[in-house]
């Protein structure tokens, strides 16, 4: 099945990913090829098969809810592109009209 241009644009929007004109065209082509290849899975009878999300036999690993030291604030902020008064700084959110 071929992906439409609109589908690629929609997915790029969901993924918050800016794509160039050239990338949109290229991905449309390449992803269509991959999805076409994935059609081989349609020939397998999966009607009675449960899905595998993890290969591990364990579920819901629990631990005591106790207070433990976390990284100091200045260490956490050390890699931030922009910070102010102990916070991460970002451009305005509310003006965002999209």
């Amino acid at each position, binding site marked *: 099945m071929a992906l439409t241009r609109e589908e690629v644009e929609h*997915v790029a929007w969901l*993924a918050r*990913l800016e*794509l160039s004109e050239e990338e949109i065209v290229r991905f449309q082509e390449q992803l269509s090829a991959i999805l076409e290849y994935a059609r081989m*899975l349609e020939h397998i009878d999966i009607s009675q098969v*449960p899905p*595998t999300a993890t290969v591990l036999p364990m579920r819901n690993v629990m631990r005591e809810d106790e207070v433990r030291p976390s990284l100091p604030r200045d260490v956490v902020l050390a890699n931030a592109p922009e910070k102010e008064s102990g916070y991460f700084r*970002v451009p305005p959110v509310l003006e965002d009209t999209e």
Partner: protein
Amino acid sequence: MDELYRLTAHEARDLLRKGEISATELTQAVLDRIHAVEDKVKAYITLTPEIALAQAAEADKTFVQARKEGRAHTLPDLLGIPLAVKDVISTAGIRTTCASRILENYIPPYDATAVQRLRAQGAVILGKTNTDEFAMGWSTENSAFGPSHNPWDLTRVPGGSSGGNAAALAADETIIAIGSDTGGSVRQPAGFCNLVALRPTYGRVSRFGLVAFASSLDQIGPMTKDVTDAALVYEAIAGHDPRDSTSVDRPVGEVRRALGQEVRGLRVGVPREYFGEGIDPRVADVVRQALRVLEDLGARLEEISLPLTRHSIPVYYIIAPAEASANLARYDGVRYGYRAEAATLWEQYKRTRGRGFGPEVKRRIILGTYALSAGYYDAYYLRAQKVRTLIRQEYEAAFRRVDVIAGPVAPVVPWPIGWAMENPVQVYLTDLLTISQAIAGVPALAVPAGFSDGLPVGLQLVGRPFDEETLFRLAYAYEQATQWGKKRPVIE
């Protein structure tokens, strides 16, 4: 002693304990070697010679003291041993880029558990090695810092994604290395560069501090020059870690005890799919020779069939990108990494990600987001998860008949640099023989099996979940019988 950089870890350990060499001499020899060949090999993204020499000096103090007290033999195996770390594994205070522009200047505030355990033994960190961006690839061609070169033929790829490790080991630019394997990323480059690598059972090694690509598949594993070293590194990094809820609380044991043990009577399954369509006949020939050696050692070969091998490719290329699309949502230019300035937060996210990620990462984010999106989830993601169940069951059934499954590591020999870039989708097929083990969560080991036209070919041994020991036992017997791994390339 000449050429200390050519030593394996266990050889160096024995010399260090006896005081015949010092950790500083060893580390300096490897750093000199890096200086001599790195221009051609390009294995590293970041080198940390000062840190390495400081750690080596510390190790030497420990050795001197312990020898004085007559207890040098009780010191950790990897004390003073130079180590390369794939640049998707966090190292406190050392830049960890994931070979991506988006993390070009990121310095982790903590160590991955695997790194912490190696540091605790006293291993010496030489630097961070090249990889495909976020470990997405098979050749290091997707690195934002340019490809590494295969020391066996510098015009060819070293494999990937842990290709920097493989290039460094083959060129003797490190003694040991750790990488990550999501669909073959430690095994395929080991196979391409005449090395040993283990993908442990999923859950054996903590993923804490491993930058997440596909969380249900990612696993850290050793890459080394021989089987004994792989066992030592595996013992060092494996075991339960409360900081990774998918790490398994189950004793690792001393797999080194398996080295040298009898392999007579082991039942080795040979899937016909591993020698059929899509496999380079030259590779198949080399690996058939290797199987004859296993037979000479007393293993009982049995032809088996794993018909879903082919289907593992689409299962992987749905599940791995789907998980990646979620894991990589965190790179938004707010807390760390690259930020593309914009007037609004929304624009900033899009632009940061659009400019920070390379083409393969974007391709997989789009593919994964699509497979998870409304209307397609059942058709792709859920279907792939169900086929994943069948692939696991196929292995379970096979392991009721045999103890180990053997075949080639990769269906092809290392390709010329540039080919993957021109064929970004066809190259997915070269994962044919390493993906299904990751999907099933079973352990798999790559060991050198010889050469085809001067290019390395690897033998892959696959085991039951949590039975790394049998893999080490058989791989060691094969290695001792053949000694392929002793061959080293001439770099010119």
